[in-house]
């Protein structure tokens, strides 16, 4: 049964990718006579081979593609970690205490819809570093999903579970570690999963503004400025693939910490 299910999902994956390549090829053929034709899969693959050469090269005049990727990932993880370290305790505080919820919720609601890019200039002024500004942007944007989901998880802790803690004289420490956190954990992971997704989207935009070494700047400089549509497309695929892997990673974590009610 499991085998059949796996084979099915492989089949669908191959089918989906084939469809994408087909559409891509059609667009390439249709735009052949345009001023700027969209390169087809075959042509892009040739450039990919070139891009993939010496992926780990780290010399002053040339950085390999993986060096750029890891540089972007490093910024994302730094920003995401700082954001999570702020968001989780704050979310617990809000979820557990009406006072803090009522006090902080309006602030969250005002700041949450703000485009991540709007924070960039502020970060640049405050930190006086383009690198720092990108990380700052990731910190801010990865705050909200984690904060909101943690607060929701903690605040929906059923009265039954609280009664158990009271009826058996759980200490505050035991209440937090054995009741509140385990209950909120799936929600916290959901928040983190959303946050890392947003952070990964935001870093590309950030690096376009900040320059330096990273996938975002690769799209802008090696792709757009150098007039290589192939590299833009390649970057899009790499960004998409890495985003998918990050999401899968958190999905695994989510499964690991789920339980039957």
């Amino acid at each position, binding site marked *: 049964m499991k085998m059949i299910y796996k084979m099915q999902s492989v089949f669908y994956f191959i089918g989906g990718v084939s469809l994408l390549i087909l559409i891509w090829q059609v667009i390439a053929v249709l735009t052949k006579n345009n001023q700027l034709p969209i390169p087809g899969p075959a042509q892009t693959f040739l450039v990919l081979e070139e891009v993939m050469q010496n992926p780990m090269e780290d010399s002053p005049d040339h950085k390999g593609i993986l060096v750029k990727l890891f540089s972007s990932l490093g910024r994302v993880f730094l920003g995401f970690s700082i954001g999570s370290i702020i968001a989780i305790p704050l979310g617990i505080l809000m979820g557990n205490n009406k006072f803090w919820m009522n006090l902080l919720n309006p602030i969250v609601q005002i700041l949450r819809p703000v485009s991540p890019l709007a924070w960039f200039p502020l970060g640049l002024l405050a930190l006086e570093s383009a690198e720092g500004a990108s990380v700052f942007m990731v910190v801010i944007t990865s705050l909200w999903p984690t904060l909101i989901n943690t607060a929701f998880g903690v605040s929906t802790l059923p009265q*039954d*579970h609280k*009664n*158990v803690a*009271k*009826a*058996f*004289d*759980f*200490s505050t420490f*035991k209440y937090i570690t*054995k*009741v509140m956190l*385990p*209950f909120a*954990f799936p929600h916290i992971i959901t928040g983190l999963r959303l946050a890392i997704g947003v952070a990964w989207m935001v870093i590309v935009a950030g690096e376009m503004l900040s320059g330096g070494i990273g996938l975002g700047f690769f799209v802008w400089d090696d792709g757009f400025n150098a007039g290589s549509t192939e590299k833009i497309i390649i970057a899009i695929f790499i960004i998409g693939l890495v985003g998918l892997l990050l999401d899968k990673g958190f999905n695994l974590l989510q499964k690991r910490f789920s*339980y*039957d*009610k």
Partner: protein
Amino acid sequence: MTNNTAEVLIGKADAATNNIGTPCIEVKNVTVSFPSKGSVYTAVKDIDLTIGKGEIISLIGHSGCGKSTLMNTISGMVKPTQGEVIANGKVVQGPGADRGIVFQNYSLLPWMSVYQNIFQAVDSVLKDKSREEKIALVDQNLKMVNLYEHKDKLPGHLSGGMKQRVAIARAFAINPSILLLDEPFGALDALTKGSMQIELLKLWNLDNRSKTIVMVTHDIEEAIFLSHRVVVMNNGPAATIREIVDIPLDRPRNKKDIVHDPKYIEIHDKLLGLLLDKFSIDDIH
């Protein structure tokens, strides 16, 4: 069985039915109301009930008659709108480990194994015991409810009856002076139910019959077999105590023999009458 003097003493207390000894739980003029859709729903009204130390009391009545609500005022999970409950000499302010609870919905923590559910309770309540003693207590209680081989399972993988047994083991393990049981054997099959009732009485005997036990039940036979007194409630809303029936049967009681005792039959009929009478009145309109 084991302690003859205790038996004689309890026998005497049974004979003098109005003498309930030192009060352990005092429900004083308790009314519980809940706000409901703009109006106020009164579950129980003006309840007075004194329960002596070492007494086993059953609360019986139709569904929704407020017996669980009354029980929850003793456990501290429901605050009386009026009146107060005193348990072990203190006004009840909330749940606490001096009153071990078997919740109606079991209330196990779903992310913890059966073993951990009991261990965490034991670890919190019996702080002075060593780790080995705590582990031994958990094992002993798991064996008592026949769940030792399921100790590593999560509650989500257990049947309703098994979850109920875990909840019973958890409440027994912390050895509280008051045990509050909300339909504790309701989800069990007849055979398991019988053996759990015996376990409850064993536990009570072990402690020189000093534990006070209050249980909510639907089961008349169970109430008679276990209790000193059966509290019959009127139908809600605003339920009151209809009658308190003494069960002057000698202990130890034998489940098989007791049913042929004329006194048992008399009490059984009386309780049935109290409950059915209510039922027929409801039937008319």
